[in-house]
């Protein structure tokens, strides 16, 4: 039972192995700290802390929340991706940017917007609404990229044999992008488990409540560490479940010839419905919150907005997010390539381990890095490099999933040809594998960029003293319920996040298309 597309077993280049090891070390940094801290309590006391009734109840509520959000976000993400990439819905290029944009909306900002409109909104539906709408792009992106790279030949065969087009989509197209759906859904689930902003504002009590409570109200990092480890265990289960759902990746083209060009599926009478769906998703995810914030910004304009401060915060936000994206990509590539091309129990295990930290709330990772900072990285404590390291820890798995899926979908044959012509593995990697997966790499980097732009808890604790990002400025004002003063920062955040987002959608949607045309 060797991997279906994997080449005969051979040794991966050393560069890849070293890079992947570095990535894993970075990803498990918080775990080392958590285990150490929880261990200082004594294991029996740590277990006693966990098996309290309330802890178990809240863990269960978190799982229910994560499950609901994951299902809804997957449905929205897949539907939006198929419409934008494969259908003839009007304004596809336009939608390709707009549907990714909610990624830039911090969950707490969206929750503020909704609650300011309907203060009595029910907790569970409110939390689900906000988390689903900010998280579905995690599914949309890998699925859109995967759909773009599919060879339409099989679908054409199915249709020519008289299958109904809708049936073709469900039985064939969706099955082929199943790995992409699973990797996106995993990110959504981990995100929903770790988010604190939205449930806190809607007052829907979940597990992150007790973790934040342990830091902010209990002043007890040890208790928080124990609780954080519980979340890690849950995340490990989710990661295993994802691997099971994803199945084996066997969907790259094999055989001779070039992939055919994709032609959009005609929606006919379904076009208005499809359009209404995209409009609704956009209106709820970005339109409505932005309308509230623009409205408040206009109210604030009467009192003069400190544009200099907005510009400063914007500069730091863009620069640090860019560094985070670059650094994360450098570490994500070795892991992604390794697991796609040299799949073994070991490489899969390495990759899986990088996901676990993603379920940790930002403040847990932040406190872990405070510890790393004061003990081993003192010269960069509360300086930019340590903040970037925190972003890498938090967002590494975002990039790894994208890179892995991208590489899996590129045919391995060309690499083998290059090898047979005497190229060394490193050269093959640089000249064949990575260029082919370039859209996915860019997508992963942009994803990290947008997500880092809105990060709050780690930025608060680790930024250089006295410097602000848009998210920390927003926090300054919203923490004393001053929406008007905070509004310009949200508006700037979403507007500037549109830049990497547009970049992202161009690579995901256009680059694939051009590649297809070029080969046609």
């Amino acid at each position, binding site marked *: 039972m060797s991997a279906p597309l994997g080449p005969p077993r051979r040794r991966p280049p050393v560069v890849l192995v070293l890079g992947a090891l570095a990535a894993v070390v970075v990803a498990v940094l918080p775990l080392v700290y958590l285990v150490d801290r929880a261990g200082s309590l004594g294991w029996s006391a740590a277990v006693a802390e966990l098996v309290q009734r*309330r802890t178990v109840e809240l863990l269960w509520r978190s799982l229910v929340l994560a499950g609901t959000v994951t299902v809804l976000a997957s449905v929205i993400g897949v539907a939006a991706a198929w419409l934008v990439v494969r259908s003839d819905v009007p304004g596809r290029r336009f939608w390709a940017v707009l549907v990714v944009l909610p990624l830039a909306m911090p969950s707490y900002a969206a929750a503020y917007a909704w*609650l300011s409109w309907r203060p009595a909104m029910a*907790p569970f539906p409110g939390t689900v609404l906000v988390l689903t709408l900010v998280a579905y792009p995690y599914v949309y992106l890998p699925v859109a990229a995967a759909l773009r790279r599919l060879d339409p030949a099989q679908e054409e065969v199915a249709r020519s044999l008289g299958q109904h087009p809708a049936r073709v989509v469900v039985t064939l197209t969706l099955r082929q992008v199943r790995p992409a759906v699973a990797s996106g859904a995993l990110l959504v689930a981990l995100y929903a488990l770790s988010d604190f902003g939205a449930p*806190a504002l809607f*007052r*829907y*009590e979940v597990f992150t409540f007790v973790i934040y*409570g342990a*830091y*902010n*109200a*209990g*002043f*007890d*990092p040890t208790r*928080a560490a124990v609780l954080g480890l519980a979340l890690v265990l849950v995340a490990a289960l989710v990661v295993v479940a994802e691997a099971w759902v994803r199945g084996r990746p066997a969907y790259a083209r094999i055989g001779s010839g070039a992939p055919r060009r994709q032609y959009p599926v005609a929606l006919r009478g379904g076009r208005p419905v499809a359009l209404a769906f995209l409009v609704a998703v956009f209106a709820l995810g970005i339109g409505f919150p932005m309308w509230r914030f623009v409205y408040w910004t206009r109210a604030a304009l009467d009192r003069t907005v400190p544009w200099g401060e907005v510009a400063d915060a914007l500069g730091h936000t*863009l*620069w640090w997010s*860019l*560094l985070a994206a*670059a*650094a994360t*990509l*450098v570490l994500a590539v070795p892991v992604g390539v390794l697991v796609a091309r040299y799949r073994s129990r070991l490489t899969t295990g390495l990759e899986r381990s990088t996901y676990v930290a993603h379920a940790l709330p930002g*403040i847990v990772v932040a*406190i872990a890095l*405070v*510890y790393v900072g*004061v003990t081993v990285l*003192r*010269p960069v*404590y*509360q*300086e*930019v*490099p340590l903040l*970037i390291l925190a972003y890498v820890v938090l967002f590494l798995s975002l990039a790894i999933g994208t890179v892995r899926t991208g590489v899996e979908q590129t045919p391995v044959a060309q690499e083998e040809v290059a090898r047979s012509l005497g190229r060394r593995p490193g050269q093959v990697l*640089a000249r064949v594998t*990575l*260029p*082919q997966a*370039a859209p996915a*790499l*860019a997508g992963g980097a942009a994803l990290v960029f947008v997500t880092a732009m809105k990060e709050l808890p780690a930025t*608060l*604790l680790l930024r*250089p*003293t*006295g410097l602000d990002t848009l998210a920390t400025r927003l926090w*300054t004002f919203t*923490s*004393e*319920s*001053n929406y008007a*003063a905070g509004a310009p920062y949200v508006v700037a955040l979403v507007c500037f996040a549109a*830049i*990497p987002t547009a*970049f992202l959608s161009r690579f995901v949607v256009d*680059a694939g298309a051009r590649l297809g045309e*070029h080969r046609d």
Partner: protein
Amino acid sequence: MAARAGGSGTGRREGAGRAGRAGLVGLLDRVAVVALVVGLVVGLVPGTAGPAGAAPGDSITVYSGRNEALIKPLFDQFTRDTGIEVQVRYGDSGALASQMLTEGGASPADVFVSQDAGALGALTNARLLAKLPPRSRSAVAPEYRADDGTWVGTSGRVRVLVYNPKLLPDPPTTIDEVVDPRYKGKVGYAPTNASWQSFVTGLRVLRGERKAEKWLRAFAANEPKAYASNAAIRDAVDAGQIWMGLVNHYYLWQKIVQNGESSVVARNQFMAPGDPGGLVNVAGVGVLKSSRNKKAAQVFVDYMLSEKGQAYFADSTYEYPLAAGVQPSVRLPSLAKLRAPALDLSDLDSLAATQELLAETGLLTR
């Protein structure tokens, strides 16, 4: 910077086929190298220019749990008056306390300015705060500072009942009257507000766990209305949507100063002497034991307790000044006359247990 990198990426991508793809790899390589180099440079430059490299006495690092919008003018005024630069890291008091507990002796912080006494108490318990000199301790009445002299209160706030005299001419003076069935659905509270949670912690300390839970259950059974903030409660009371609410004293004064006394209906009811509903909590300041600039840090503490510092709190926050003989800037009964419940404010650090109790009685979340 970001725009430029994006621009060159787009330019590269114009080339079709192999050239374009090789260009992309080149771009990625370059981004990685630039990121590494820049990361190091950015990291090292402020490292040498930061607080560590400044001449001693010139600069201190303050971790502030009080909001920037509220307190920055005072920090700026301090720098103007003393010449000592202040590097401020703003955050939630609790998160900053957790950060310092993790940093231990290696904390870059010289001073901790906290929104409430509980976070300071947690640092005292971890032996991270230095003992303040007698002049700082004696500046403030004993109930508003740590017993061991490791922190002092800088301003005080009193829990009151804000009420609407038109709807409720004769408001309760104890929390036990507040849970009277007459007031079913007429009382507002802010479940996530730190001062409300401090009040509940005080209730637990004063009456014991069992009685505190009993009161909370009675309160919950009376169907109180939950609000996002104290200001929202005040406005709802003023507008007559509810009869009364449990808040801090200064919210009413913010509204009165802004709109004029005649246009504000709501009034404050101070609670009966000794009633847990009249808890006085403080914002305070402490100096880190690990501070390498204790002299400047002490100048900062002195300034907070000076007439200027105290007048700032009185004028800009309508809180109670606690030192230097400064009087409140608005009409408030004197702290001595209020006879607030006797309570060691450091005991307010058991907030986690409070939150569990609130969750159990259904008062924290819905």
